[in-house]
């Protein structure tokens, strides 16, 4: 088995349109959730989100590309450019045959669906733009990354709702670890902050109208976000030989299915995924210093997640830190695990733990150290990142300090 390291990272999210800006925001505990600026907001009851304000496609793409790229693809490509530039890899030669792209998204081109439904249903138009299908398809982002960087190995898109990114990165990890690929571009993206995207979530009655407050007793729901994060996973010896800067090592991954309920989380399913990732990485609970929680800020997720962590870690749970950065960037749904992996890398590399902001009242059912409101300095050797999706699909990654 090969060892797998991360040699590049990129992101666009509500906090910043790059990694350094995002990490600065994490350190400052800054909130990127604001009033939404979208058409027909007056007909929505949810009016806040982790929106990427000031997004300027023309700064990144030419006219032909803008016509062809849904916003989820745009976010992905900008994040991928940053990640691949940082890695220093070039895939034009033989390496391109041994490298691919696996990305996560839950909804794909939701804005494209929304705009075109509006056009044919609300505005009564009988003709849509010829690129609607290639623009909205869930694999559009992965395909455009493959084309822009000449990645000619295995590429596909994973859709497991809120765990999409973690499942995608798990696949990329497996491919490099098994020797099937030398390097993989991986992560995820989501852009569903449009009228239809938010209206759908409103229906479920789990959204907060004022703030995302993970683990806080007065939490009242999740807040959507948008954006992308993309990483370069590379085989360790390949990275060493070219003296690449290593951001962190990916050491374990596990996925489980609750086989129980389409929306309610399961403690057992989550616990089996966390324990599975530790086993895969040959780690003991005591090795883990930080958990980036799924931490959606819903009543159900947060208490179930804390119970799962308590089950896996036992008394050790009192000695680890677990925070949810969703209170800062919102829930990026299929892209969320990717953005949150940045908090794990920051913990391992910089020794700074991103806080759970918006934390106001202790909840006895979430009695863990959730790093409330203020970032903390701490040396961490191993971090894990949780993602638990609707549909009961759980995916947990384990990372080690390089």
């Amino acid at each position, binding site marked *: 088995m090969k060892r797998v390291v991360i040699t590049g990272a990129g992101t666009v999210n509500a906090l910043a349109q790059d990694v350094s800006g995002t990490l600065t925001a994490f350190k400052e505990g800054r909130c990127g959730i604001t009033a939404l600026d979208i058409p027909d907001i007056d007909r929505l009851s949810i009016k806040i989100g982790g929106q990427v304000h000031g997004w300027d496609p023309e700064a990144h793409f030419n006219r032909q590309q803008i016509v062809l790229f849904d916003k989820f693809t745009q976010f992905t490509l900008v994040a991928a450019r940053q990640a691949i530039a940082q890695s220093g890899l070039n895939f034009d030669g033989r390496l391109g045959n041994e490298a691919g792209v696996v990305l996560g998204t839950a909804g794909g081109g939701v804005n494209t669906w929304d705009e075109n439904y509006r056009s044919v249903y609300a505005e009564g138009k009988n003709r849509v733009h010829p690129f609607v299908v290639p623009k909205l398809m869930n694999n559009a982002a992965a395909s455009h990354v493959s084309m822009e960087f000449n990645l000619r190995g295995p590429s596909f898109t994973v859709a497991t709702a809120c765990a999409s990114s973690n499942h995608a990165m798990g696949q990329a990890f497996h491919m490099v670890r098994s020797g099937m690929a030398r390097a993989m571009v991986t992560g995820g993206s989501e852009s569903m902050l449009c009228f239809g995207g938010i209206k759908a979530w409103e*229906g*479920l*009655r*789990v*959204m*907060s109208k004022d703030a995302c407050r993970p683990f806080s007793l007065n*939490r*009242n*729901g999740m807040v959507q976000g948008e954006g992308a994060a993309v990483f370069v996973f590379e085989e360790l010896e390949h990275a060493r030989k070219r003296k690449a800067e290593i951001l962190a090592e990916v050491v374990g991954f596990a996925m489980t299915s609750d086989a129980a*309920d*389409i*929306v*309610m989380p399961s403690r057992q399913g989550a616990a089996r995924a966390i324990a599975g990732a530790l086993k895969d990485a040959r780690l003991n609970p005591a090795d883990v210093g930080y958990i980036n929680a799924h931490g959606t800020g*819903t*009543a*159900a997720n947060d208490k179930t997640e804390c119970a799962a962590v308590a089950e896996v870690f036992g008394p050790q749970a009192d000695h680890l830190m677990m925070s949810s950065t969703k209170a800062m960037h919102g829930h990026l749904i299929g892209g969320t695990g990717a953005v949150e992996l940045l908090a794990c890398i920051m913990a391992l590399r910089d020794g700074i733990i991103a806080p759970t902001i918006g934390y106001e009242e202790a909840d006895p059912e979430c009695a863990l150290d959730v790093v409330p409101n203020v970032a903390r300095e701490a040396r961490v050797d191993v971090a894990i990142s949780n993602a638990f999706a609707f549909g009961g699909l759980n995916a947990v990654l384990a990372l080690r300090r390089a």
Partner: protein
Amino acid sequence: MAISVEDTVRAIIAEQAGLDLADVTLDSSLESLGVDSLGVVEAIFAIEEAFDVSVPFNANAPQDSGFDLTSVGTIVAAVQGLIDQQAA
């Protein structure tokens, strides 16, 4: 309205619970009728559609929603309250 608020609410809940209308009495709780959290959200949607009202309900904090879901009877009263509010 020909059909009473009570009958409509009971019919909506009976459909969610998969029970006969007669089994849905005013003093029964949603839990005792076997309506789970997703069923509650769906029943509230059906109530909103049936009465053209907006029910203030957040699944994360049902107790703070100002819409009493304790029993079928309290739901009927809450729906009647919303209808009266709208008429006022």
